């Protein structure tokens, strides 16, 4: 595996993805903020949560870039559409499996079945993360398509 490629393009892909998600938030398309959701796993302080969340988010970006790179290496080819295809699967997994399961893993997130409690007040994302806005799935899918597209386009096979 091309580790330098994974580091560089994993980072760039995460930057592009984060920018698109933040832009969608700013335009009122979604309230989903992965850095905030990840950061509140560690602290209730909003500002610190965003900071920590960004760190965790970028580490995740590299971890997933390794998975994408492993797929490219096994297929012995890396193209934008292959990257985007993995991104689509990745996004669908996030929306249909990871998001609904998040309340179980997140110490400050309210479960879908119960009401808020003193230590659990963060709104859960629900199926397809629709609780964060009707256009959330579109933003998430687009962001992952771009992430995968960047990796597929620029990653060089070893």
């Amino acid at each position, binding site marked *: 595996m091309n580790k330098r490629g994974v580091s560089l393009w994993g980072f760039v892909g995460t930057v592009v993805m984060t920018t698109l998600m933040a832009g969608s938030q700013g335009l009122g398309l979604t*309230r989903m903020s992965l850095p905030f959701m990840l950061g509140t796993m560690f602290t209730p302080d909003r500002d610190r949560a965003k900071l920590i969340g960004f760190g965790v988010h970028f580490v995740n970006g590299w971890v997933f870039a390794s998975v994408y790179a492993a797929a490219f290496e096994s297929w012995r080819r890396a193209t934008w559409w292959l990257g985007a295809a993995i991104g689509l699967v990745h996004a669908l997994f996030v929306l249909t499996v990871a998001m609904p399961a998040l309340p179980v893993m997140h110490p*400050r997130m309210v479960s879908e079945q119960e009401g808020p409690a003193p230590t659990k007040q*963060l709104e859960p994302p629900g199926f397809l993360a629709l609780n964060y806005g009707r256009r959330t799935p579109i933003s998430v899918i687009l962001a992952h398509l771009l992430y995968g597209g960047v990796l597929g386009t620029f990653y060089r096979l070893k």
Partner: protein
Amino acid sequence: MLETTFHCPTGVFILRDLMLVSSEEQKRASLTPEHEVLREIEGIAGEVEVAILYGPRPDYGRIHPGLKDRGRHGIRCEANGALLILRSELPWELAGDGRSAHGLVRIRAGERKCLSFSYSNEAPAIIPLLGEAARERLERTVRWWREWANRCAYRGPYRDAVVRSALALKLMTYAPSGALVAAPTTSLPEAMGGVRNWDYRYCWLRDASFTLRALSTLCYDEEAEAFHGWMLHATRLTWPELQVLYDVFGEARLSERELGHLEGYAGSRPVRIGNDAHGQLQLDVYGEVLDAAARFAGRGGRFDRDATRMLNGLGHTVCRRWREPDEGIWEGRSGRFHHTHSKALCWVALDRLINMHEARHLKVPVDVFRAHRGEIRREIEARGYNERIGSYTRTFDGDEVDASLLTLPLYGYVEGTNPRMRSTYARIHERLSRDGLLYRYETGTDDGLPPSEGAFGICSFWAVECQARGGDVEGAKQAFERLLSYANDVGLFAGEIDPETGAALGNFPQAFTHIGLINAAPTFAERRQEGAARRACL
């Protein structure tokens, strides 16, 4: 927190409304909603049936969002990307069309029930807790405000009214930037059924100096510094020219629009959002901003290189433009004139720069500024004072008076005891006063709008201050107390007062009036003390 007691045939209950406040420490320790309004109903005696209706209508009533009952997660709806959640301890039912919800509940003595409304648009919402946790938030908020009010350093007479006004100002401050809006409302009419309906949810630079003076007098230094910071930040966008008003973020484009679908308060149309005054030329704002900067420097504030360059630039703009006519402090829509008040404030602008230079707060081309300052004064004394009526006049070579001229001694342009100022005060009082209240200008003055408006709150407080500075402390005391009687039941003032009925007119509550109150009370107390000291010496 607003507490309203309802006396009903079957019992008594209290309704408490508040926006929750948390200290920075508390925000770090627990997740709190971005914005939350809490209502609590408490039964006091007997049993009362209370009907509650919830029908959110965002975007000035243009959106009727569909509500979803999500059980313990509350009643939710979305509008323009934001999420609105209502949670309560009361039973609710959605209306058939799903656009509103209603509840009916019997409240018995001793029972307490709360409703929480929260708004989130930045990130996933934080769902607020009810019950004991909500009551804790309520008590925490009350405690926070009490502690804030106790920091008020003013210990003179009428302290309650001064503290109430300070609280009103704090509530009108946008915490992230330190900006202070003129009022939190738009289009409450200055005459019932009339067209003088304006959007005051912006920050006027003309309030700058008086605001800073008020905050500094009460020793709210943190707020004064934040406001000063916002002022310097906002004005950078239009530097070296100043605009009349900006929004809380410093945005300068605030085009006025009319909302035709709203009928307006008491049928007062049009309802406006935005304010076209932003495009006017009001030369007085230079004096206001530079006087505020001088106050800031006088209290130990320092200017960095950018701020120095900026203040210098404003001085040069004054030198270049003071001979131009302008719309004046009252934002008339009938054209530009040579307003005496605007010229006097240009004098103030240069005077403060020269003083700051002499006190080594900054460096300015002092000879140039002195020359212009002298020229402005000569022009005012020659053309802005009418010997025939014995008064400074609204415009150069005119014969109308204007309440804004009462501020001349407040800025130190002239002493309150100066014969010209004393006679100006007398003439203004004679022509503009009614039952102790003051109009801004004479009835016949063309301001570009149909006549009819109330007496102006801050002008009446200026008059009190002027009267006290002129030496009539007892008269000022009576006038001040009479003015205080026009406050509503919780001590708040609108921009104007109807002299016929005493009713509040215009946007409410209005910062300018409360600033006038805060500034008048200490001046007036100082004069009383000076008088007492003089008598003791004799």
